[in-house]
């Protein structure tokens, strides 16, 4: 009888070790999908690196000029688009002037998508607040080719890389761009980056050469490589992946997409951890029995 029970147990552990990967996929899909239906906001503390981003923007007086470089494409939307929307909300709430650009061709288009959403919210939620006006409160310079060379040239003169904005209007005819020649005339640079060219190039060619103040929003894959820049003071703050975006939304006191996504993220991580624990128990149990 004991031998039979032992054989049954052995079969269970063996089954666990050779579990079909598709079963794991189903568990992950359920873990990701179900929480999306619950409007649950996880409580999480705002980390110092995220607080650094918030403080850098919050400390700017109204009318300050902020350059936001959109260096990502739709492939990184779930992580970076909520950050982009939060940056716009923060800047417009504080009456900052926003200059948009992109080192990735799709970047400025992502900016327009985020702007549309934020303007819609402004119209719906706060009817008294005026919607920012193009050319006065914000401008989209569009994309220009050249990667880090663009960053370097803009340090001398914006017009070398951007003679006109995305609509073809010469910079000299745009009210917001009056008095803006190079980084000396910009109070803060924000970079949303998903790879090359991105935050590393902004640090190398703008921060360390022209001594500008830079904060960044990065995909989680990139984030560990950016934290050393914060420690050395080259970056004032970083939003690392979806969690960084969620913390920033909480710092702004305006939970949005990133916060709602974090519940799915947390449940998925718990399921992954459970699979790792079960797999390890099965592995060590089987090894013990074999020896």
């Amino acid at each position, binding site marked *: 009888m004991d031998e039979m029970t032992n054989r049954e147990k052995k079969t269970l552990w063996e089954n666990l070790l050779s579990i079909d990967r598709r079963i794991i996929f189903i568990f992950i899909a359920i873990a990701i999908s179900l929480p*999306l*239906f619950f409007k649950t906001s996880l409580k999480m503390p705002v980390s110092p690196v995220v607080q650094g981003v918030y403080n850098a923007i919050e400390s700017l007086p109204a009318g300050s000029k902020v350059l936001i470089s959109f260096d990502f494409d739709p492939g990184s939307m*779930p*992580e970076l688009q909520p950050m982009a929307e939060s940056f716009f909300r923060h800047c417009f709430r504080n009456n900052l002037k926003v200059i948009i650009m992109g080192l990735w061709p799709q970047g400025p288009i992502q900016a327009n998508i985020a702007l549309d959403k934020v303007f819609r919210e402004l119209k719906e939620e706060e009817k008294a607040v005026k919607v920012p006006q193009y050319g006065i409160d914000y401008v989209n310079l569009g994309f220009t080719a050249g990667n880090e060379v663009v960053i370097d040239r803009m340090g001398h003169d914006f017009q070398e890389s951007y003679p006109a904005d995305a609509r073809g209007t010469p910079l000299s005819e745009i009210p917001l761009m009056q008095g803006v020649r190079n980084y000396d005339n910009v109070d803060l640079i924000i970079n949303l980056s998903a790879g090359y060219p991105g935050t590393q190039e902004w640090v*190398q060619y703008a921060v*360390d050469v022209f001594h500008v103040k830079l904060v960044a929003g990065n995909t*989680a894959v990139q984030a560990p490589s950016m934290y050393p820049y914060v420690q*050395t003071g*080259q970056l004032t703050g970083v939003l690392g992946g*979806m969690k960084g975006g969620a913390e920033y939304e909480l710092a702004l006191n305006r939970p949005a997409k990133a916060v709602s996504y974090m519940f799915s993220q947390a449940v998925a991580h718990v399921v992954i951890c459970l699979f790792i624990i079960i797999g390890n128990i099965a592995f060590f149990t089987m090894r013990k029995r074999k020896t």
Partner: protein
Amino acid sequence: MNGEIIGVWIGAILTLGIFSFLYKDNPFYKFSEALFVGISAGYWFVVTFWQYFIPKFWDNLSLSFHELVVNGRIDYHWIYLIGGFFGVLMLLRLVPKIGWLSRWSLAFIVGTTAGLQFTRYLESNGIRQVVGTIKPLVVGGNLGTSFGNIIIVVGTFCGLIYFFFSKEHKGAFGGAARVGVWFLMINFGAMFGYTVMSRMSLLIGRMDYLFADWLKLIK
């Protein structure tokens, strides 16, 4: 049915097509994959032509040509011909007999990138990081900062020792190398954790698209 709804439906069906590979390889997945690769190639060709070739090469040379014909002056925009020349050399890869000429362009690209990157990378990712690790081990009245500084200094020192292979990893030296390995493993673990979070974020984005934008089950 307007264009936006059609777009959402196409996006949802193609997303399911790509996800179907998780069950097993199938024609629906192959179709979605081929469509994605084809559209990407076409998209990048158009972007390269209109964002790189036209504004950087064609427009600049047109200006020079206009200046030459109208005013009889040779302006500096003719310098873009050098870039055009190297571009043509790259295309010579399509002609096997003289394909070796494309190496000139590649040599120019590699040389320029190396020259640009050398000083910038050395300062930003080398010197500034070294300076960042030179910290006081004890900060009066701030236990947390002192602890953090000790971790940075010990971690950097032991990590470097692990990569020093001119001396056998034995005794105190070996112990320090083992501590270095622990720091490296923790670093790799953190990077892996962040990568998992990133990939989960992409999956969350797709699921949200399917349930919210397509099926309208989430508001």
